[in-house]
């Protein structure tokens, strides 16, 4: 990475340094390793207590679900899918930002990504972990869910390769695997740093194993960077494919409101939108709690805001386009579904979605907003609420009123739906808290690569002259 550096400053925003505070290699190591090595703060204990209790609610709800059946949820006929699928799509969406930041921005030489890619990738993994649980538990016979995998069996049965649910299984598990490898590969030099700084035998041993014998030699760096580049190349199409495939769960069906060709790009845009919002939320918390203002600067947040502004408008465009096509197609079922979304019994969900996803991000046009940490924090949370409701609107409103009016019914979640949803945040946060405790949350090796010291030159001005 340092070998490719051309400029000590951000290329796309000259004049604004990527890392502030006049950091040296040593100070970066100290700062970031320090978070992992320092004495554990009581706040962390408090946080993990709360989050693991929530996680317990999650697993408790799942236990009750396995015991009693899907009936504890609010799903019915016609609304066969409820919170579980909404949450699945929501978490998969969240999981988009990490790999996008790591892989696509890496390939595009967006060097500002280095400050946020590590925890964004971690967030991706944890979000996908949460996401993967839902399709597993939402089936009626959880103990037979593995039949969705093409496992050779005595029944001589393959899964049905025409079913989008099966595509999901492949898409999401591939994405998870690729993201995990990518994340781990990026971690190797940092694990080596931690190993070298370890003061206890056990820590040295564990970090030593995790560092896979990293010595930081030239040849190692050469191979490492090539591997990283290849992994980035592999991950890039996955970022686009995974949510496209998830969208086919809906697009391939014939339910009005689901059966639309716009879904793949619309879902990908929405996923990036929500993923960045979640990175923003977590990033703001991390920089505040661990004093990382020098690493995750306002400049970073500003850039993320711009991406959210763009993807938010893409999503808004998709909303409008759906309406237009519903009218233009002349299909009465399609048109009814969209009018019903906006003015039917679930209008409250629809307008929540529009407000949070289309109207609120318009504030990002203002630099003042983009540079206000408080505003960004609130907006990022609103966007995530909006994106959850987007999935709610898609899943529930379409099913609740489809072709034959006699079948129409209202869906309302039960206590267990909500407990499972809230509990999944518990799992997510618990994993994230463990991550910030044991793994460097910022990629030391890569941040060092964007420091001025990594690219010893005269000043840019002089260079330009020369």
């Amino acid at each position, binding site marked *: 990475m340092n070998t490719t550096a051309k400029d000590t400053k951000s290329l796309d925003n000259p004049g604004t340094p990527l890392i502030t505070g006049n950091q040296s290699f040593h100070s970066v190591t100290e700062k970031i390793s320090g978070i992992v090595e320092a004495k554990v703060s009581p706040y962390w204990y408090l946080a993990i207590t709360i989050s693991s209790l929530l996680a317990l609610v999650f697993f408790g709800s799942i236990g009750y679900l396995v015991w009693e*059946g899907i009936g504890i949820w609010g799903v*019915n*006929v016609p609304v066969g899918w409820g919170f579980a699928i909404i949450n699945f799509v929501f978490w998969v969406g969240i999981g988009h930002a990490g790999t996008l930041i790591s892989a696509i921005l890496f390939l595009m030489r967006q060097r500002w990504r280095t400050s946020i890619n590590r925890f964004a990738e971690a967030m991706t993994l944890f979000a996908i972990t949460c996401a993967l649980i839902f399709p597993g538990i939402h089936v009626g016979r959880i103990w037979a869910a593995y039949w969705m995998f093409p496992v050779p069996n005595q029944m001589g049965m393959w899964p*049905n390769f025409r079913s989008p649910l*099966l595509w999901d299984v492949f898409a999401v598990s591939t994405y998870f695997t690729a993201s995990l490898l990518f994340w781990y590969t990026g971690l190797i030099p940092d694990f080596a740093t931690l190993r070298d700084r370890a003061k206890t035998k056990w820590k040295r041993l564990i970090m030593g194993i995790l560092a896979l014998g990293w010595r930081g030699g030239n040849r190692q760096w050469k191979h490492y960077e090539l591997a990283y580049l290849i992994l980035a190349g592999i991950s890039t199409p996955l970022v686009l494919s995974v949510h496209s495939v998830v969208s086919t769960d809906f697009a391939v069906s014939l339910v009005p409101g689901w059966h639309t060709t716009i879904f793949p790009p619309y879902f990908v845009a929405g996923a990036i939108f929500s993923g960045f919002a979640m990175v923003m939320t977590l990033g703001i918390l991390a920089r505040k709690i661990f004093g990382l203002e020098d690493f995750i600067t306002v400049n970073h947040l500003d850039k993320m805001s711009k991406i959210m502004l763009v993807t938010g408008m893409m999503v808004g465009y998709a909303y409008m386009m759906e309406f237009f096509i519903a009218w233009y197609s002349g299909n009465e079922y399609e048109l009814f579904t969209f009018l019903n979304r906006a003015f039917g019994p679930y209008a409250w969900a629809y307008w929540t979605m529009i407000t949070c996803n289309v109207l609120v991000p318009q504030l990002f046009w203002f630099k003042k907003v983009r540079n206000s940490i408080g505003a960004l924090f609130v907006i990022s949370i609103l966007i995530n609420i909006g994106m959850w409701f987007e999935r709610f609107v898609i899943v529930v409103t379409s099913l609740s009123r489809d072709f*034959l*009016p006699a079948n129409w019914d209202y869906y309302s*979640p039960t206590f267990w739906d909500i407990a499972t949803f809230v509990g999944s945040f518990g799992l997510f946060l618990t994993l994230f808290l463990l991550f910030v405790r044991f793994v460097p949350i910022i990629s030391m090796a890569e941040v060092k690569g964007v420091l001025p010291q990594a690219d010893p030159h005269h000043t840019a001005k002089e260079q330009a002259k020369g």
Partner: protein
Amino acid sequence: MKKKQGKDYWRSLEQIADTPQFREFLHREFPEHAWELDNSISRRNFISIMSASLALAGLTGCRRPVDKIVPYVAPPEELVPGQPFHYATSMPFGVGGYGLVVETHEGRPTKIEGNRLHPSTRGASSAITQASLLGLYDPDRSHKPLYRGVEKEWAEFVAFWHDLYPRYLQKKGEGLAIIAESTSSPTFFRLYEEFRKNFPEADFVVYEAVSDEKIYKGIKLATGQTLQPLYHFDRAKVILSLDADFLLTESGNIAATRKFAQSRRIQSENDSMNRLYVVEGVFSLTGAMADHRLRLPSSQVVHFAIALAGELQTLGLSLNISDLPDSIAADIDKKWLNVLARDLLASAPNSLLIAGRRQPPEVHALVAAINHAIGATGITVDYARPDGLIYPDSDAFASLSRKIESGSVTSVIILGGNPVYNSCADIDVKTVLGKVEHSVHLSPYIDETSQLTEWHLPQSHFLESWGDVRSLDGTLGIIQPMIEPLYDSHSSLEMMSLLVTGRDRRGYDIVRYYWQDILKGTDYEKEWRKILHDGLKESSAYPLMIPQIDHYALTESLKNLPQQEGAITAENLEIVFTVSPSLFDGRFANNGWLQELPDSMTKLCWDNAALLSFNTADALRVRNGDMVQINFRGHRLELPVWVMPGQADNTVSVSLGYGREKAGHVGTGVGFNSYRIRHSSSPDFGIGAIIQKTGGTYLLATTQDHQSMEGRPVVREASLEEYRREPDFAEKMVEHPPLVSIYTEHKYDEGYQWGMTIDLNICTGCNACTIACQSENNIPIVGKEQVHRGREMHWIRNDRYFIGDTDNPEVVHQPVACQHCENAPCEQVCPVAATSHDREGLNVMTYNRCIGTRYCSNNCPYKVRRFNFFNYTGKMAETLKMAQNPDVTVRSRGVMEKCTFCVQRISRARITAKKENRTIRDGEVITACQQGCPADAIVFGNINDPESRVSQIKKQNRNYALLAELNTQPRNTYLAKVRNPHPELENYKPLGS
């Protein structure tokens, strides 16, 4: 997809009446607690009502032990394990009965079907007859005689009676009273005659909460004789129903539907069909089938009948009724009346008037007179002189209760029935029972009455006892048991025999003994065997006769019509007590199938409600689910409101049969007991009810939340004239691009290709198919709370839509089961291929492959798939397990299920055909719904055979596939509905509507 509809379909009930109240109502249409956090599912609650009392599962030890595993040492002749036997029997009901055939598996009756030979069913059935099977296995049935709550042996009761018997014999029965149910059993009648001989001083009273008493009285008024009217709807071209729901809740409904469908069925635009006029206050199933329906409070129907008589006389019909009283009902639409009168005369004698059992005798008398005058008697209506019937008599019942209260009765014996529950509010049977020394109650359940009597004796179910019954036309049918009594129970014949003769005889011996008389002069054994085989005695119907009309008596009675109690207003409502199509008078309250069966008109299940019209609800400021108090003649009842379009304004109707205090685990506490406000002065309807809002609300579970078709071509309908103008109107209602597939689809052109048609023109929406299917396919019930959540399990459901204005809408019914799409959307999306197509075109479910993603249900445009959200069948009582069809898998939790086109019946036919080295004949496979359908609206068969009945029907121009534009290629198609309005009344809105 441009639509072309002749009718003005509602966007929805509320939108059409776009007032703020209705808008609010619109919100209420969706259950109020969108984000209700808890869920009252409380498993415990739900289990307690599930599958007819799971709680009793532990009590099964009380059942007589059955050794099942041991194979037969000497198997019965012809028995092949796994092959069912079919036996003919009859189900007694009121003064009639239904001829049935029962399928038994290894000695367990599992399915009830109509007896093709029997005129009361002709192979069809009804929801109630089908569901009576569940009553046999009800674990809540009483198991042992009880003496003051303590279990005793039957022998102890016999001893008890042997003690009393000589004393009453000596006193010629003085102080002894029997309260029986009405019956048409000849054997019972002989016993009754002996009883009269032995105990001339005793009281023998017959009480029925719901009966045809007024019909018999009315006919007696007109003819001087007690006669049974027999209607031939098949011969009628114009039918007028005066508050008669003859297609569902009146007596003889199965035969009536069958015959009505015959003259309604059309094959092409050149055929003619009957025309049905209905005048009624409560929207009935018959009203839904009407070509013209006049909304009129039930108490005004008599005025309508008089006005009609007057109109007919004006048109030249000689009724010989001098001085017809002036009709006081001013708001009877003159044009409607005139057209009707002319229509009746024009098609006379093939016209028919029929009045409902709620109507007073004068209406029935007048109807008989008009039928007579237009020459219909002998053509569309016959009269038979019944022989040996035990008729209900509510006056005698009331005077008996007074007599008991005076203390001159020492023993009361109640044979069946439940008078403590279902007597009118002003007759306090509870106190009356306390006045006697001895009281005995024979009843299948320990119910409200049994609780108060000294002795309770378990009554046998008709499927486990011997007996006989005459159907309405007099055909003698036999009741033969399918199984040994499950409990220590006895039939009312056995009980009556004991009471009369003092001898404890078996039902078989009693019936055999009295049938020696009936079969006198024949080879008894041979004839008896034939009767057992056929289920009936050939040509044993009553002789028909044409009675003379006593015009004088009729004129007199019409002059002396009681004065109306004030004008009907929102403050002085008319209250109508309706019979529940499911629970009847409450006797089926513990039958889970019937409790969960949505009412054909309201789509409510597990409850009854006060039905009000839109305008009345508006005037009273009440909405669906609001609790109100009805105050009628000093009696009060609180119950929720349900707004029913088409109900007459300023009337409230409540269904009888609900609110049982002691029915069993299923029925106790379900709904509201309207007997509490039923007054013997006006047991069917009366004016003077006051409704007050109490402020509370109540959750009513409905299986259909939305009432309008939203302008979609779901049920396609035209008038006969429109149909003649445009014979393929049904197909033309939807325009769609050519239906092509990008794949090469399987051809399905070899072997059997199963398909079905449902004729919406003759389907009445009676729900017989739903229960037949439930019985055949082991479909569980799920309870009110689950129905409210939208989880009912019926494989074939009956969609009901309103059309037209909210005051006087038309109603259409559409049974929807799996459409067996050739291009099935469900199959493609299942990740584990648990639902797939077989080569005969069936969309099949592999239950043990299903993992329950519910994706198939989401993708089914008809939403006919049903999911086991809980283990609905897991804790089934032992006895209920015996009711299951062994040919059909019982589904467990977490799997999807749906209509299979009765694949087990197809398999059975295939095996038989294979053994006989032939192909399956047309009509050999009859699905359960088809078999149950009294209208014969459902036809099933091989569509690959151009000669099969189903192929022929699919060629008709009314044939259309539901949602064909989705290219699902359904195997199930519908025949569009045709109404036959009188040209002068088409689109005419009569006064008062």
